[in-house]
């Protein structure tokens, strides 16, 4: 089988990656031939900006800020870029709330505080799971199971919380929007939680629940939505592919020996990456056959050389150039 990937130059990050699901976010800025990467380390986000020719790298650190507090010790749960037609925003979620920045991390444009109880209860409060949906929504998950829908104007800081979706009862783990670029897909967003429940939504003034796919008592830590197919990675190391709107299970892959921490998909080629605590990253190729509308899966593995590096399995190789199957290895 022809190799589905090749390794490019490695980029060193300033500090270690925290053990969090989906802890690598990537933003390609084509007009400037730059790619930004973020990796969360405790209460700081490490950002690297890399030129496409591989010659220039610039590092910065973004400290978590909450409300009026200049720097916060509150741990960041996730950092992700949200790409909307008119603007890109960097969204950070933490135990205290949700912060949104301009894409280079320079200015905070919005802060949303989570409701935290006066006295600590055993149940921790945090936000986790970030997705940009269609033209103007950014959705963020919360530990209560709620999904917050923010309405984002094309510029400025007049971002508002427009809706709260209450379907999940367990903490949200990850969310993803339809990434194929196809306008024909009905489902826009999928949300996943700690019980493995998957909710499939259609966006709009009021978000509509299209389907609720029950879990099997295993946390779904990472999820993607591609051509209407939900691709879900679980704590057992399994990947499952469901048809979003109907909930039909297409395929089940015993992919990893330990907890899956991240999935990513190249929308034009159907190359899927999965990364897990077993220290392996696997590359899969998904194709949808039009007659049967089924999804094919075949896979290869990428052997991680640095087995001893503690948190590396939680970072994900991201496919940057879908047409050419290239990616960068980051550690």
């Amino acid at each position, binding site marked *: 089988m022809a190799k589905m990937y090749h390794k490019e130059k490695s980029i060193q990050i300033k500090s270690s990656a925290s053990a969090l699901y989906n802890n690598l976010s990537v933003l390609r800025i084509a007009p400037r031939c730059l790619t930004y990467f973020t990796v969360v380390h*405790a209460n700081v986000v490490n950002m690297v900006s890399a030129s496409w020719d591989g010659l220039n790298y610039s590092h910065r650190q973004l400290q978590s800020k909450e409300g009026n507090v200049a720097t916060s010790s509150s741990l960041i749960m996730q950092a992700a870029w949200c790409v909307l037609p008119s603007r890109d925003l960097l969204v950070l979620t933490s135990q205290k709330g949700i912060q949104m920045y301009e894409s280079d991390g320079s200015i905070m444009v919005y802060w949303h505080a989570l409701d935290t109880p006066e006295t600590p209860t055993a149940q921790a409060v945090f936000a986790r799971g970030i997705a940009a949906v269609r033209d103007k929504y950014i959705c963020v998950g919360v530990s209560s199971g709620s999904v917050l829908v923010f309405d984002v104007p094309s510029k400025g800081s007049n971002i508002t919380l427009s809706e709260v979706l209450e379907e999940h009862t367990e903490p949200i783990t990850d969310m993803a929007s339809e990434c194929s670029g196809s306008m024909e897909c009905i489902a826009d967003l999928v949300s996943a939680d700690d019980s493995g429940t998957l909710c499939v939504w259609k966006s709009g003034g009021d978000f509509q629940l299209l389907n609720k796919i029950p879990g099997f008592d295993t946390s779904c830590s990472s999820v993607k939505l591609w051509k209407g197919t939900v691709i879900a990675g679980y704590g057992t190391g399994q990947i499952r592919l469901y048809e979003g709107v109907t909930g039909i299970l297409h395929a089940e892959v015993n992919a990893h020996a*330990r907890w899956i921490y991240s999935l990513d998909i190249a929308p034009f080629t159907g190359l899927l990456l999965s990364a897990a605590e077993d220290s392996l990253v696997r590359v899969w190729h998904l194709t949808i056959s039009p007659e049967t509308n089924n999804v094919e899966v075949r896979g290869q593995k990428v052997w991680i050389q640095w087995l001893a590096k503690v948190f590396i399995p939680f970072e994900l190789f991201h496919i940057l150039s879908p047409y050419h199957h290239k990616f960068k290895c980051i550690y």
Partner: protein
Amino acid sequence: MSLRTLPLLVLNMGGEMLYILDQRLRAQHETDDKTQRGGWSEDDRKRVLNDIVRSMFSKAFMEELMKPQGLYSQRALRCVLTRLAHTSIMRLNPASMDRLYDLMMMAFKYQLLLCPRPRDLLLITCNHVDAVRDMVKDSPCLINQINDAQRQILEMYTPLSDGELQFIRQTLLSLFQDVHVRVSIFLKEKIQNPDGRFVLPTSGPVPHGSDVPGLIRWFNSRGREVRRREFPSGGCYCSSLREGSFDVAGDRVTRLGTNMYCTTSSEDTRTSDSSKNTCKTKQQASVHPNPLAKEELNLLAKLMGGMEVWNLASADGGVKVNLFLSEQEEDDGGISSGGDEPAFGVINIQATQDHQVNTELTRIAEELLVQQDQPELPSNKGDDLLAMMDEL
């Protein structure tokens, strides 16, 4: 992050501490070095362990641990564990406590990382508790205390979902994120690399509840399997072992959390810092600048009358005993950090049988009583815990 980390931290790291102290005190006794005054007899060793266990598993202490609270900083955690060690007649100087703490941290970090699934963290905790119970098996009263504490822990953690347990594990991992102290026993067993990172195996049984990787199955719209194909898994995995027991007593199956020092020599507890800068403490302090922990440390310092406790090691009344065998180890001050050639330091636990300890504890207790008459200090996380430990 998770508000339920403290019991697991203290029980597991406390367990590791007891393993090391037990091994060191036995080694001292077995050398039969009667030339040193105040040598540690078998009874002394048992008394030290019993005292520490009594404090660690006391009802009041456990209740305090189990209250929902944020992750302690390294400094605060080390304070608590040091105080635990000093509820016995033994005194450790700061350098010894440093090395002991390094070993405890790295052992627990290893267990956390290699824990096959988050729920197995409870089994690891049970392994520690089981071993501690065995250490004090001559004392039915302590055994009851331990059993009660273990029941409470299992009641608290067993009902949690895998996702919540993983969240607890992620929180604990963040505490040890940048700690890469090399430990001889780990290097020898090839579970740690020379750069201080642990080796993650790609062979062996998969966690309970997982399947061996290597299979893709396809289903039709009615849910029936229509095709399957295998692919090379890239590792050498086999089916999971049976599940360990989550009862107060039972076979835990996993070896993580059991005493690895049983058959080791003093050579194996050597540590060295793999970081190039002499900044390990700085790293630890900077990762989690938790303002609440700082407040509680200030309060602790006030309660204990500053760091006077440490001076007991050099007081005339106390007897310094070197727990390690060779004179060279006695001279060796500890770890030399910085410099490209890492030097292997040796844990030099200088323990003192302190005959003044009762006087000292009484003095501290009296100070506490006096302070209670003063206007109440603002309550801080850990304040109650530390204050209560002084009463043990």
